[in-house]
């Protein structure tokens, strides 16, 4: 900020038959401050008005504009401007901004809040419906593309498939292993503190075994993969969309669905069951370790109980969900990537959306599985 002595200043000197306005200092946007407010407050002047701008050291368009608008306002209020004195270059600038005066575009009137809320809700609903319809269409096209790929395996992009298997499967192993191990530990620890009260410590094996195999292993893996790979699919395809690579593909006779979507869907459908298997193992390992430390259940004891009490069907129920969840995650990720518009902002929005939608769909599907399996009494 300029020092006080450099700020714009304004002074009013009463005359016998009117008022003299004297201004000086730096009349630039950053130095106007108080002078701007003082000029605003100036009421209509009885008699004649003299404006002396001679002592203004520097004037910019903002300062010139304020002087112009004040003069104009005072004139409209009936003040008679006798003379205005300024350095020639300042006078020229004031005339320049005068010549550029345009009416300010009016702000759109805000609607009544109730109407605005209803309006937004309506638009949002319409958007969701439209988006769902398009997504359904995308599902159909992906299924067709998958069918075509399975009839003509030579059309499949094997290199891309291997690459995505590595990205989504192999590279996700450490994080999936670590998280499921820790959840196994937590489950056993929480179970132990409850079951110990009934002297039923050994049932911790049932608790950890069933919950990890049937629900926790797959659900946790699916959520990690949705955050990791679903978003990566959207970001990768979306940035290709931004750089018009998708359009280039189409003009070169390549089908983006075949080239980009099919390998990703297949890779994830293969990778997620494998990751789920890993998560099951690590979860059980974590549970076993914690039971040993906390309850003194030795590993072979735990395994014996595990074999006797936990049915193999729990494992299969977990595993059968994996490809379904993988399909949903890949579908949502690719769909959002292809729906990116031509600006970087939409890429960010779509990526966030892909993760949220994928996790939502995974949980909905999981609930559907529970209901169906309950009905089948499995």
């Amino acid at each position: 900020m300029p020092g006080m002595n450099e700020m714009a200043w304004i002074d009013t000197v009463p005359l016998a038959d009117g008022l003299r306005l004297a201004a000086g200092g730096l009349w630039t946007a950053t130095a106007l401050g108080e002078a701007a407010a003082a000029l605003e407050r100036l009421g209509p002047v009885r008699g004649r008005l003299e404006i002396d701008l001679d002592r203004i050291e520097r004037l910019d368009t903002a300062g010139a504009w304020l002087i112009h608008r004040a003069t104009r306002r005072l004139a409209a209020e009936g003040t008679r401007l006798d003379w205005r004195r300024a350095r020639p270059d300042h006078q020229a600038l004031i005339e320049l901004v005068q010549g550029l005066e345009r009416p300010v575009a009016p702000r759109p009137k805000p609607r009544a809040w109730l109407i605005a809320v209803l309006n937004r809700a309506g638009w949002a609903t319409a958007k969701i419906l439209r988006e769902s319809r398009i997504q359904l269409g995308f599902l159909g096209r992906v299924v067709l593309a998958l069918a075509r790929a399975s009839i003509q395996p030579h059309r499949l992009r094997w290199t891309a498939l291997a690459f995505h298997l590595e990205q989504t499967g192999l590279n996700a192993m450490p994080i999936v292993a670590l998280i499921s191990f820790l959840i196994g530990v937590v489950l056993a620890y929480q179970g132990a503190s409850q079951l110990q009260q009934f002297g039923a410590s050994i049932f911790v094996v049932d608790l950890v075994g069933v919950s990890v195999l049937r629900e926790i292993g797959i659900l946790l893996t699916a959520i990690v993969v949705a955050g990791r790979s679903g978003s990566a699919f959207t970001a990768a395809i979306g940035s290709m969309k931004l750089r018009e690579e998708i359009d280039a593909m189409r003009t070169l006779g390549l089908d983006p669905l075949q080239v980009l979507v099919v390998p990703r869907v297949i890779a994830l459908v293969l990778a997620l069951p494998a990751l789920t298997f890993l998560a099951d193992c690590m979860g059980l390992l974590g549970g076993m370790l914690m039971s040993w430390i906390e309850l003194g259940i030795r590993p072979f004891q735990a395994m014996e109980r595990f074999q006797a009490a936990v049915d193999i069907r729990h494992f299969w129920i977990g595993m059968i969900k994996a490809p379904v969840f993988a399909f949903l995650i890949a579908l949502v990720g690719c769909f959002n990537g292809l729906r990116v518009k031509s600006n970087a902002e939409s890429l960010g929005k779509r990526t966030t959306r892909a993760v949220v939608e994928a996790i939502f769909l995974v949980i909905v599907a999981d609930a559907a599985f529970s209901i169906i399996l309950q009905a089948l009494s499995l």
Partner: protein
Amino acid sequence: MSARPPPPAISVRGLRTAFDRQLIHDRLDLEVRAGEILGVVGGSGTGKSVLMRTLLGLNRPYAGSIRLFGIDVTAADDAMRRAVNRRLGVLFQDGALFGSLTVAENIAVPLREHARLPPAAVEEIVALKLAMVGLPQDAARKLPAELSGGMRKRVGLARALALDPELVFLDEPTAGLDPIGAAAFDQLILELNRRLGLTFYMITHDLDSLHAICHRVAVLAEKRVLTIAPIAELRRHDHPWIVEYFGGPRGRAALGGAA
């Protein structure tokens, strides 16, 4: 005090910049006079943008001194640098407008940040800046995404002019504009230079712009400013790159059009 000639807008001595152990500029000297329109040309990779970013303080030089309006900014502290920057305006290549703000809000950003003005006055000054860059007032409430490339550049220029800078940097202002739009933008720059005495530092590949509005042209090559001269003199220069640039088919065509 008005008798003393103003210091050069930009004065660079012995500048050296480097990225990843690759020398971009070495012993580069440059002087831009107050009130001129300087065109900056150079082949791809000669560091035109790096030089601009260094002058703006977005990049730290390894050695050398940079004076803006006679103030040594390489030795300046943060407060001083900010004070100098307030006297600069920059138009980035695609305008670099804030996507979430309307055109009017974009232009008002520097005014609201650095000046204490009545809100109504801010609105009117925004309208004034829009008129200065030749934009219709109904553009004010639009979002940058709703504008054409040429309009975005004009809004970018209006925002750069918000605080009435003395020196304006333009990064390829006519790139991506159609010839009519480009010529109109050239005229706008020329008019702002004449009417407000603004100094322009303009990176450009547009031979027509160079001919139409630049008082002098600086040629960047061999890690330094090879030469700086009015375009008519450059045509007599015998450096192979300059001969190729102005003597090639496009260079000759632009010359023919200007003559």
